[in-house]
């Protein structure tokens, strides 16, 4: 007990009562009950209600495509900010230098649900930007974060907002008030686990994937009952000895137990196959493969997971025995071609993998970045490593660097144009193997790493489903944010310098741009209210900039939601 004695020479008064810090804001405290009727069936058919953005990618197929077309190639030049929601941190928080706004806004019938860094969740009036409620989870200052103080979004259903926290909790909040309904501890912060993923609601469950591959954890996906928070299943992405796939790990020792393979980005879902398509992360240690001989399943893979049981039905490994930190977490976009049910996955390693999503069979592989020097993947799937950290202390240089030719940030696919729009990073890195002993919660890379701060490039590149490049919009800096495409035949993308641009989806022509003042590392979405279309983009540079663009380490942080629309009928009356 703290032994604090009152002074006898003072007559103490009563301090005013403590209050919630959020009560000292302009928040109204409640949101309309719009999420009450958001069901699995509505999310299944999300694209039939284009006024809303009901789930992380807008729909289960991961296309990041909206049928909204009020804003189009003819009038996009006229769009302007409708409102801005800005929020800066108070006091000391984890990742003071690395926090970033990586969210993808969810919008339901005029209410926007947003998660920020460090445990923040907000409900906003999507027409005016008025804050309705806020929730703040207390995040320990000392959580293990490889890649910054970030969170990628929330999920909504049955009156609740689901969100993950950096100290590995999964929460259900009341969507009308922001009050916590349930709170489960999903991971072990002492082991280096955290959660940054946007949850995915499937049926009556909330599916999340863990973070912590850089600390040598054992990756897993978890499904929780939406109403109670009870865990329904856990799917480890690294098999134990004796389980299928364990033959790809050393038979002696505990390399498997520290093997990584985390599913830290939201998967997609096909109700016909009842499979979740989830990307897995790098093996640990990232760059020292000698301590983990073998292919190291199911790291760097697309895994198809039974949504009911959590069992892995098939897998496709994009980078067997990874030595370059080439996570495969990025999206699996579901689409059809010639009557086949396919998925497209643009991987960190610079290749796009088109797979039959019913079987996992390889359909096509093609490169999508100019410089690939680490090795080669032939059209038949043969992987030939060429440059990799091998001898202790001997530096090698390869492309793409550890951030990949595309980071976790998402491509989009327009069924109108039949094109994929890909944010591309063309950056190399120097890596020297430096073996280290494994210790729980301590970074476990097995290398010294410096990413190039010069000689880099970026683009939004459009590919057809056959892998042919159709157009390329070039940027001096790598493109590190998700793109969005709409039925207005537009592609929206943010640059690291802060520009938010609209491109012609058929030609790549730059049609409009706006300087948001801070770099983009998030996922924009679109919605409409009373027929008026809005484009929402979280703006806030940060995260593991040293990994994906060290040339912008000094770039300004930001913490603002910018929302754009055509000028007629804008209502920026948020606030009081």
């Amino acid at each position: 007990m703290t032994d604090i004695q009152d002074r006898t020479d003072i007559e103490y008064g009563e301090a005013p009562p403590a209050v919630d810090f959020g009560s000292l804001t302009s928040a109204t405290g409640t949101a309309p009950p719009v999420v009450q009727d958001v069901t699995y069936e509505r999310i299944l058919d999300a694209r039939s209600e284009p006024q809303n953005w009901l789930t992380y990618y807008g729909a289960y197929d991961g296309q990041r495509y909206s049928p909204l077309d009020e804003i189009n190639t003819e009038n996009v030049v006229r769009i302007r900010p409708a409102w801005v929601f800005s929020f800066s941190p108070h006091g000391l928080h984890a990742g003071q230098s690395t926090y970033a706004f990586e969210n993808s806004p969810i919008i339901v019938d005029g209410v926007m649900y947003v998660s920020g860094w460090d445990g923040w969740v907000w409900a906003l009036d999507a027409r005016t930007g008025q804050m309705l409620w806020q929730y703040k989870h207390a995040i320990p200052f000392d959580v293990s974060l490889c890649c910054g103080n970030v969170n990628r979004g929330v999920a909504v259903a049955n009156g609740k907002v689901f969100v993950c926290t950096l100290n590995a909790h999964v929460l259900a909040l009341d969507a009308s008030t922001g009050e916590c309904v349930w709170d489960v501890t999903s991971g072990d912060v002492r082991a280096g686990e955290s959660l940054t993923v946007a949850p995915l609601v499937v049926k009556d469950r909330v599916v999340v994937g863990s973070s912590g591959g850089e600390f040598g954890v054992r990756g897993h996906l978890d499904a929780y009952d939406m109403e109670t928070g009870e865990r329904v299943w856990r799917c480890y992405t690294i098999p134990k000895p004796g389980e299928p796939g364990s033959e790809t790990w050393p038979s002696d020792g505990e390399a498997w137990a520290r093997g990584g393979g985390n599913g830290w980005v939201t998967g997609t879902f096909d109700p016909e196959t009842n499979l979740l398509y989830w990307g897995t992360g790098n093996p640990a240690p990232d760059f020292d493969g000698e301590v983990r001989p073998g292919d190291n399943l199911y790291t760097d893979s697309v895994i198809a997971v039974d949504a009911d049981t959590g069992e892995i039905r098939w897998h496709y490994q994009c980078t067997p025995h990874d030595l370059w930190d080439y996570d495969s977490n990025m999206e699996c976009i579901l689409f059809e071609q010639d009557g086949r049910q396919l998925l497209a996955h643009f991987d960190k390693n610079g290749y796009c993998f088109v797979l039959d999503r019913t079987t996992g069979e390889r359909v096509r592989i093609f490169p999508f970045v100019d410089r690939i020097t680490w090795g080669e993947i032939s059209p038949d799937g043969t992987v030939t490593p060429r440059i990799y950290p091998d001898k202790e202390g001997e530096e090698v240089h390869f492309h793409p660097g550890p951030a990949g030719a595309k980071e976790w940030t998402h491509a989009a696919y327009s069924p109108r144009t039949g094109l994929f729009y890909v944010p591309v990073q063309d950056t190399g890195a120097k890596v020297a193997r430096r073996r280290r002993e494994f210790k729980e919660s301590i970074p476990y890379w097995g290398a010294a790493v410096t990413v190039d701060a010069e000689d880099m490039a970026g683009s939004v590149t459009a590919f057809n489903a056959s892998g042919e490049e159709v157009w390329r919009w070039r940027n001096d800096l790598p493109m590190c944010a998700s793109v969005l495409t709409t039925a207005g035949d537009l592609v929206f993308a943010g640059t690291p310098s802060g520009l938010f641009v609209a491109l012609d989806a058929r030609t790549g022509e730059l049609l409009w741009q706006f300087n948001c003042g801070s770099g983009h590392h998030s996922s924009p979405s679109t919605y409409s209210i009373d027929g008026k279309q809005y484009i929402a983009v979280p703006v806030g540079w940060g995260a593991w900039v040293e990994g994906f663009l060290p040339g912008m380490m000094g770039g300004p942080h930001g913490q603002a939601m910018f929302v754009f629309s055509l000028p007629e009928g804008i209502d920026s009356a948020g606030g009081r």
Partner: protein
Amino acid sequence: MTSTASERSAALSEIGLDGQNQATIGRLLATGNIGHAEDRDDGRMHARIRIVPDQLVWDPSVLVLPHGGHLDIEFVNDDQNTHCALVPSNGDSKWMWLPNYSRGTMSVTLDGPGYYWFSSNIGNDEGRGLIGAIVVRGDVPESARLDRPQQPRP
């Protein structure tokens, strides 16, 4: 030359880092006392933290909790200036005025393990020394741990 842990307090004092307007303008963070919260029968924890006159420091400046949970903190401002307390808590941070010679209790909920900073977030109270740490000991529930053999720690 570096000092050992046992010499650290003396060195801080000798240099003038553990007081106001000596070596530095303010007081180096987390150089104050360490205290422990009390576990009570009702399942809640309790602690008292005061502001030391003219020292712009919480006493204790490092509060140790045996585990995560609900914590009642009685703040006592013995200083001749007004300060406040902003303390992390699940749901929302808690905030209260601490006028000169006042006392008040705040209830917060924190997960363990890990540590959190609390502060007086007016003026530059934080820079002068009124930032303290709440340390939560313990482990996550067994259900949240990885299915793997026990691993070495630093």
